[in-house]
């Protein structure tokens, strides 16, 4: 490939003419004129139909927002297409939501309906919708997810793949508003939990089941041993010396670590700190499902999501067991929960034992908290329970 210099950068004088600390562009530069005009003066809003919102301003102005799904991982071609749509309908203005949906704003319902029709008619050559309209109200909106096998080095599962599978399975609920309340699904490919899995109605989480493999020959060279020791939440890692035969056949004693396997719970934190402790494993790795979390303060305070399925294997490329479990959870919730009740509110009202019964989930010892003193508070200290 030919190197084309940008003209702004001279590698011999890297600091010359360097622009820094200018921050992001101010959002007001990109506000549609009607939003700019009525900013801070909105009176009320309503959801006209799935995917279309209307906001009424004090001035009487109306803004219609058409929300459509996006896979989050986008090519520049798709972004260009989004820009073309925005140019055609919205004067070149468009925005992305905090769940990575795309929102186009227009000033009349007719335009919004026309735009919705256009968006729903655009498809990829494989047949999937490019910009399916929906994601509003008491339905299922986009899945907040992570990098997975596309870019990260610590994942236990894939993000884009599992998310596509789940959204395919639950697609109808993206375009409908039939649930008792909104259902937030999130995905993280390891328990670093980048994103929102710890506070989502249903969460998909990548999980390991085998301890790290130790590369003794390189460990002291590539890792700061005390950091690896301190990275372990259960104190399973300790520094040690060991005799090894190197790849080149030389025998020597090296500084390294030892891992007490029965104390290791496969979090992978030590690998994050030390590249010589890899633990990804094809058969060992899979998915944990958590449920019942929420962020809003509406009626009940925010909640953490709780582990409800201890393990689902990685079944590339369509993760059928994952899809099936998600379907069961959503349908059971839709059938049994009361209006406005979030997933966690419902499970807590009926009791978790009833929740496991209704969802036909297996309750195994993996689900009982055993992490330090606070585990005690998750056990039942009452005679109140249902048979």
């Amino acid at each position, binding site marked *: 490939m030919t190197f084309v210099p940008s003209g702004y950068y001279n590698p011999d004088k890297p600091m010359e003419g360097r622009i820094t600390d200018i921050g992001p562009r101010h959002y007001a530069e990109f506000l549609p004129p009607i939003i700019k005009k009525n900013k801070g003066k909105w009176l009320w809003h309503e959801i006209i139909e799935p995917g279309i919102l209307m906001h009424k301003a004090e001035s009487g102005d109306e803004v219609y927002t058409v929300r459509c799904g996006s896979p989050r991982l986008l090519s520049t071609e798709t972004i260009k297409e989004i820009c073309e749509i925005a140019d055609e309908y919205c004067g070149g203005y468009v925005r992305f939501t905090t769940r990575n949906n795309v929102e186009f704003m227009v000033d009349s319902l007719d335009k919004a309906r026309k735009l919705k029709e256009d968006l729903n008619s655009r498809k990829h050559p494989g047949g999937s919708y490019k910009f399916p309209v929906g994601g509003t109200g008491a339905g299922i909106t986009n899945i907040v997810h992570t990098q997975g096998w596309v870019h990260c080095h610590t994942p236990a599962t894939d993000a884009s793949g599992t998310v596509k599978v789940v959204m395919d399975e639950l697609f109808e609920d993206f375009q409908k508003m039939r649930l008792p309340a909104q259902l937030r699904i999130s995905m993280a490919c390891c328990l670093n939990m980048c994103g929102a899995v710890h506070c989502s109605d249903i969460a998909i989480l990548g999980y390991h089941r085998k301890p790290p493999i130790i590369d003794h020959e390189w460990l002291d060279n590539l*890792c700061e*041993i005390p950091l690896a020791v301190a990275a372990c939440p259960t104190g399973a890692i300790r520094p040690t010396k060991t005799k090894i035969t190197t790849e080149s056949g030389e025998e020597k004693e090296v500084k390294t670590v030892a891992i007490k396997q029965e104390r290791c719970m496969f979090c992978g934190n030590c690998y994050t700190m030390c590249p010589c402790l890899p633990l990804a494993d094809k058969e060992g790795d899979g998915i944990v499902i958590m449920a019942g979390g929420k962020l809003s303060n509406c009626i009940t305070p925010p909640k953490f999501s709780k582990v409800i399925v201890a393990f689902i294997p990685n079944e590339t490329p369509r993760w059928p067991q994952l899809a099936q479990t998600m379907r069961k959870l959503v349908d059971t919730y839709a059938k049994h929960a009361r209006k406005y009740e979030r997933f966690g509110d419902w499970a807590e009202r009926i009791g978790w034992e009833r929740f496991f019964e209704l969802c036909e989930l297996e309750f195994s010892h993996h689900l009982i908290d055993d992490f330090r003193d606070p585990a005690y508070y998750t056990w039942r200290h009452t005679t109140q329970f249902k048979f």
Partner: protein
Amino acid sequence: MAVVEFKGKKFEVDEDGFLQRFEDWCEEWVEYVKEQEGIKEITDDHRKVIEFLQDYYKKNGIAPMVRILSKVTGFKLKQIYELFPSGPGKGACKMAGLPKPTGCV
């Protein structure tokens, strides 16, 4: 793993240009990194930072936290960036021959 040659010395490095073994560090390494890291001349201040990083690593097995580096050398973070434009991790630690920083960086 790549091997780079500089002034008759050979260094095993990773894809980010960090030395694979602390023992391989020598004067030539500093000269070699200087060129990539946009540093014109190694001053006494550069030496002070490098020496402290190496001392600390030998004693403790880890790189110091930025606050410790600042407190002991007396250089504020701003001054460290003036000395090492890529910063204390990518610039100074690399030049001192310390292992590559890990974690969510």
